C-alpha cells in the first residue's frame, strides 16, 4: 500500500515536471524567422545577438512599471498583445496620471523590417525607440538616468542583466538592447492570408475574400505593400488637420514644408483587432477608414500621388475589402505565450 502511494506520488511529480517543461516561460524559443519570400530585415542582429536571457530580460522590462517615474505605467500599458500591441479603444494613448498624448500608440510587430519608428519616422533605430515613452512627460515621465539608477539598485535586475550581458554595471545600452531583443521577436506571419499565400493545406480564401484581395491589390497595395503590408514610407493620406492637435507629422522632424502632414504608412497586418485608426485614432472602425479613402480625401500640395485620383468602391466592394483585411489577423502571434507577462512568476 505504502509502495503504491509512493508510485502515485512519483507519477504526479513526473506529470507536474512534464507540464512545467511545456510552460513557455521556462525556455522560450527565440529563433528569429525570416519568412520565405520576405525581404532581408533592416535590424542589425550582429550588433545585438539574441539570447534567451536577453529576451527574458527584455520581457521583464516591457511589463515593469518601474520604468515610469511613479511605478504606475509600463510599456504594456499602451501596447497590449491581444490588439497587436496597440492601445485598444484609445484614440490617443494616456500615460502617467492619465495624461493624454497627441498620437495613437503604434502596433508593434515585424519591427526588424522597420526603417524608422514613430508616426513621424523621427526615430532611426529600434533600440533608440523606448527612450521616448520612458522620458515623455505624458507617458512614463522618467529621467533615463533615474531608470538606470533604479535598475542598478535592484538585486533582481542586477542578476537578470548580468545573465544577459555578463556585465555587473547596468547601462542604458543594455536596457535598450534587452528591450529590442524582446520586441524584435514580435513576428506576425501566420495569418490566414499567409497560409493561403503559402498554399497550406486547408486554407483558401472565400469568394468574397478573393474579391476583396483584388480590390486591395488595385487600390491599396502601392503603400501597404505585401508581404509586410507597408512600404515604410511617410505619406500625406489626405486627412484634415485637427486644429486642436495641429500635428504636422514629418514636417516637425525635417522642418521641410514638403513633409507637411506626412505620417508613416502603418502595416495592415492585424488591422481588424487594432482599432482605432490613423495617427490620432480618429476613425473607430474600418468602414470609416475606407470611406475616408473613397470620399474624404483632402487635397493639398503634399497629398500622396496615389490618392490624387478618386477611389470609387461600391458597398459590396467595401464589404469584401474588409473581409480580406480580416484575413490579416494572426492569432498565433496575438496569443503567443512567449509574449505574456511573467513578471510575478
Amino acid at each position: 500500500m505504502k509502495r503504491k502511494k509512493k508510485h502515485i506520488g512519483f507519477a504526479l511529480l513526473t506529470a507536474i515536471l512534464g507540464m512545467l517543461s511545456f510552460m513557455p516561460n521556462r525556455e522560450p524559443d527565440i529563433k528569429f524567422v525570416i519568412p520565405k519570400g520576405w525581404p532581408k530585415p533592416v535590424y542589425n542582429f550582429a550588433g545585438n545577438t539574441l539570447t534567451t536571457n536577453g529576451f527574458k530580460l527584455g520581457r521583464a522590462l516591457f511589463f515593469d512599471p518601474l520604468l515610469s517615474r511613479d511605478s504606475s505605467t509600463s510599456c504594456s500599458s499602451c501596447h497590449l498583445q491581444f490588439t497587436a500591441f496597440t492601445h485598444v479603444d484609445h484614440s490617443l494613448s494616456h500615460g502617467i496620471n492619465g495624461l493624454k498624448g497627441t498620437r495613437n500608440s503604434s502596433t508593434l510587430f515585424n519591427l526588424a523590417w522597420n526603417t524608422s519608428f514613430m508616426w513621424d519616422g523621427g526615430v532611426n533605430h529600434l533600440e533608440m525607440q523606448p527612450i521616448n515613452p520612458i522620458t515623455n512627460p505624458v507617458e512614463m515621465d522618467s529621467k533615463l538616468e533615474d531608470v538606470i539608477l533604479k535598475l542598478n539598485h535592484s538585486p533582481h535586475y542586477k542578476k537578470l542583466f548580468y545573465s544577459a550581458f555578463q556585465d555587473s554595471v547596468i547601462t542604458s545600452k543594455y536596457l535598450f538592447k534587452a528591450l529590442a531583443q524582446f520586441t524584435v521577436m514580435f513576428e506576425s506571419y501566420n495569418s490566414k492570408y499567409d497560409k493561403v499565400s503559402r498554399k497550406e493545406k486547408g486554407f483558401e480564401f472565400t469568394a468574397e475574400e478573393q474579391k476583396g484581395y483584388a480590390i486591395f491589390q488595385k487600390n491599396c497595395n502601392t503603400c501597404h505593400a505585401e508581404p509586410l503590408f507597408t512600404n515604410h514610407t511617410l505619406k500625406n493620406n489626405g486627412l484634415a488637420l485637427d486644429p486642436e492637435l495641429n500635428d504636422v507629422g514629418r514636417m516637425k522632424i525635417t522642418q521641410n514644408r514638403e513633409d507637411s502632414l506626412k505620417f508613416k504608412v502603418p502595416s495592415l497586418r492585424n488591422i481588424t483587432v487594432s482599432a482605432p485608426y490613423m495617427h490620432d485614432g480618429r476613425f473607430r472602425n474600418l468602414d470609416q477608414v475606407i470611406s475616408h479613402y473613397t470620399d474624404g480625401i483632402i487635397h493639398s500640395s503634399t497629398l500622396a500621388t496615389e490618392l490624387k485620383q478618386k477611389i470609387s468602391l461600391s458597398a459590396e466592394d467595401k464589404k469584401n475589402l474588409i473581409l480580406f483585411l480580416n484575413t490579416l489577423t494572426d492569432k498565433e502571434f496575438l496569443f503567443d505565450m512567449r509574449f505574456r507577462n511573467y513578471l510575478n512568476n
Partner: protein
Amino acid sequence: MNVLKKYSTINYGIALLFSVWCCYSFTNAQKPITAKKNDQGKIILKLNLVFNEQALLLGNKAYINASGDSLIVDEFKCYISTLRFFNSKNQVSSEPNSYHLINAEDSSSLTISVTKIPAGNYIGLNFNIGIDSTTSVSGALDGALDPTKGMFWAWNTGYIAAKLQGRSKKCNTLHHAFEYHIGGYLQPYHALRNIDLKLQNLKVESGKTTVIELKVDVAEWFKTPYLIDLSKTNNVVLPNKEAITIATNYSDMFSVSKTRDPF
C-alpha cells in the same frame, strides 16, 4: 619641328612625373603609421575654455559677445570625435573608438589622453565637433555616447554636437535664457564640423608624453561669419538652418595655444 618634338617630350615628362606624384600621394594619403609596440608615445590634449581672453566660468561671470551684449554662460558641452594626428608624409595615427564629451562643469573632461601614438613628428591635428552619421544610426551606445549624458535627442534621433546655455538681458524669454542645442546628421541640416589644426613639428617619443594645449573660445559662437543677435536667435534646439549657422560659427573656436615637448 624639332622644337615641337622637344616640347612634347617635356610635356610627356611632366605628365609622367605628375602621374607618378599622383600615385605616390594617393598611396600615401592618410595611410596609417605603423610602429612597433615599444616605439609609441602619448599625447595629452589640455583644453582651456575661454570667452574672448577670459577664462570661462559658469553661472555668474558676465561676458560681452560680438554684438556687444552682456551674457552669462550656465552650461557648455561639446563632443570631440575621431581624433587624428598627421605627420609630414600625410600619414595618420587615429585614436580608435574616439568619442569625447567636453563639459565645462567637469574639469576631468578637459584633459584628453591619447595613447599608442607612433613616435615621430606631427604637423596636423584633425577631429570632428559632433558625432558622425554612421554612429548616429547605430542604435544603443555607451560611454561618452550614453544618452544619459544629456547630449541626445530622443524624438528625432541624434546626438547634440554642442550645447551652450545661458542668460542675457537681450533675450526676451523666460528668465532671459538662451539655449543652443546644435546638431543634426542629415542633410540639409548636417551640423558635423571637421576641424584641422596645424602643429609645429610636434615630437612624440617612445614612452614619453607630449602636451598640446588647446584654447576653446566660446565667444566664437556669436562672432564669425554670422553675427548672432541674442534678441532674435536665442532658442535653437533642433537641427535647422539656425543650428547650421551656429555650427559654422563655432567651427573656429579651437586653436593650438601651446605645446610641450615630450617628458
